[in-house]
């Protein structure tokens, strides 16, 4: 087709040659980039936390709290909670290893343990909320504390629900395989992200 519309173009390669080049499996034309997309989205999600952290640090630097406005936070429970969350990342990783080895029963066990650790974290968080000496609107530190931990708690809740779903899906024959397990990998990536955010949050709120 020599047409007005398509000028002779040396830079257009031969389609037949192209076909030879692309003898790769058919899915090469539709690469699965969902995990990459999720990672990009988690960068965005992380920036929301970064904004909160920046606001919190600025408040600490320039907004002195009123007299008796400083609270001594109980450190033991949050520290245990941090360990619980870190352990849950480890158990999810073990679950992933089990999936790669196609040991589905072990995989489901690890998933259930991960979800249980997530729920335990939330329970610890709840217990702390009910025993804190301050409420949401008491002062700037109190508000920031609840906003940060609450926003993170939402993420943990969502992640725990994801893990339960993945656990349920993993029970179906052949739903996840060692090669094909996007939902599993996505939940794992998300869970590690939520854990990582908590470590920073713990350091800023409790240790700093």
């Amino acid at each position, binding site marked *: 087709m020599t047409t007005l519309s398509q000028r002779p173009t040396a*830079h*257009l390669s031969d389609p037949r040659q192209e076909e030879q080049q692309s003898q790769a499996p058919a899915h090469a034309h539709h690469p699965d980039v969902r995990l990459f997309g999720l990672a990009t989205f988690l960068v965005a999600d992380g920036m929301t936390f970064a904004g909160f952290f*920046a606001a919190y640090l600025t408040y600490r630097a320039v907004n002195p709290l009123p007299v008796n406005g400083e609270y001594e936070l109980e450190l033991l429970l949050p520290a245990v909670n941090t360990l619980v969350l870190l352990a849950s990342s480890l158990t999810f990783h073990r679950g992933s290893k089990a999936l790669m080895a196609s040991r589905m029963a072990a995989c489901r066990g690890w998933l259930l343990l991960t979800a249980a650790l997530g729920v335990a974290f939330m329970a610890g968080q709840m217990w702390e909320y009910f025993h804190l000496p301050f409420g949401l609107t008491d002062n700037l530190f109190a508000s920031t504390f609840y906003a940060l931990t609450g926003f993170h708690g939402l993420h943990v809740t969502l992640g725990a629900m994801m893990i339960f779903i993945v656990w349920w899906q993993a029970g179906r024959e052949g739903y996840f395989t060692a090669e094909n397990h996007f939902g599993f990998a996505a939940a794992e990536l998300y869970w590690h992200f939520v854990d990582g955010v908590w470590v920073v949050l713990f350091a800023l709120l409790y240790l700093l």
Partner: protein
Amino acid sequence: MTTSALPASPHHREPNPMEPHHMDVQHHTPWYEYFGFSLDHKVIGIQYLVTGFFFYLVGGALAGMIRVELVTPLSDFMTRDTYNQVLTLHGTIMIFLWIVPVVNGAFGNYLVPFYVGARDMAFPRLNAVAFWMLPPAGFLLLSSYFIGGAAQAGWTAYPPLSITTPAVGQIIWIVSVLLLGGSSIFGAVNFIATVLKLRRPGLGLFQLPMFCWAMLGTSVLVVLATPVLAGALILLSMDIVAGTGFFNPALGGNAVVYQHLFWFYSHPAVYIMVLPAFGLVSEILPIHARKPLFGYRSMIYSILGIVFLGLIVWAHHMFTSGTPPWMRLFFTIATAIIAVPTGIKFFNWLATLWQGKLALNSALLFCCGFIFNFVFGGITGVALAQVPFDVHVHDTYFVVAHFHYIVFGGTVFVIFAAIYHWFPKASGRLLNEHLGRFHCLLSFLGFNICFFPQHWLGLNGMPRRVAEYDPQFQLINQISSVGALLLAISTLPFLINVVWSLWKGAPAGDNPWRACTAEWLTSSPPPVENWLHEAPLVTEPYDYGSAEDAMPVTTVQGRELWSAGR
């Protein structure tokens, strides 16, 4: 290879540009697709464009109300409260529902898959979801006017003003902007994955058309900056609803922290609005000047430079917010440095035009209008970055004029250039050039008459966002309003042109501009999966001006086709 080596098939017959229904041979997207949850990137692009244009008309009507109010020094056309609502809605609609969705969502979605040699975006379903967040957010925002009044705190929503004005409108505003921000982030995730991961095998990053780089840079900004605005708005809504005091000095909070978080997004937002426009200009100029894009690599590096610098200049909006001297110094210098990559792009465009065989059609004329307006807005921008000057004109009409030179004189002119350029591809029909040039002339005159005098107003101390002003400013305000009227009228030839050309326009043929990029190497409008054959591998998207290019420029032919079509 030559194109004659392609296998003969019914779809590769010689297309006859005079044949009106030539495009109907291909898969034709049925009309109702455009009203549904379509996954086709081209349909979604047009959905973004049409929705955005609807809100452009709404925002333009609001701007008209502002200019009518300012004809006289007293607030006699509407109450001050209404005026506040109108200016807030105008700014919010124009930024979040017209410019950002159209330069990113409309042109990005339509063009990026073609340019990377893909049949769709990386996540078509996410793409459709991102679009369908737009109409509800828009109508939510408009509805707030009828539910106890729209937000009154301007598009910046600075506390404590936004905490003390009526809460319902402000909360609806926040929800609406959060939705639009989410839509924007989903779009950006899609663009990053498409450009980085969906390129046709054999197509390198440094062989991509400039628009892909612009979209990549823009999307990085969206991903890094928009969530910070979302965080700020969540805290602001807690201040309004739950009684916290994050930004309320009366409760021990800090209003300047909101400004930092807001501008951390909203300065990059200027680049989110203008970088895609840079990309579009870089596509349109070479085709109509019949020359390769000048300085391809330097264009890419300047985009990357703008992305990086764009993230570290936000506090130049806050020189009157008690910023400490070191902060003023840093942000002044960083802002001034942005003029370097921007200047590189500007001179590259001029060099692309230099000694080109210019086809002075509507698309190129609008691009030239862009270059003129944008340089002017850029120069006042560098001036505003200087603390002594900024302290003098902060929150005056000088800032209003500068901003409109960037986003209207800059980006909106490019949007129109892009519509004139890609309308033949998307519809299969040419737009009328006479009406197009008339539209361009009217827009250029109307725009400059409207906004140039506002520099004078600002320098002489007229504050922005006021319904009443000192009588000494009346004449200049009236001149500005006449310009606004011209601008409003300029939309008419465009609308007539689009409607008429869709109905009776001359058939465009596959490639009326004889362009090299991949969207022109398929039918007009393109088939559902973009190409009926293998996606073409375009490694030199700006290969103009070679020996076989020495044909008369097709615009002339387009005009002949137009008269012949009638």
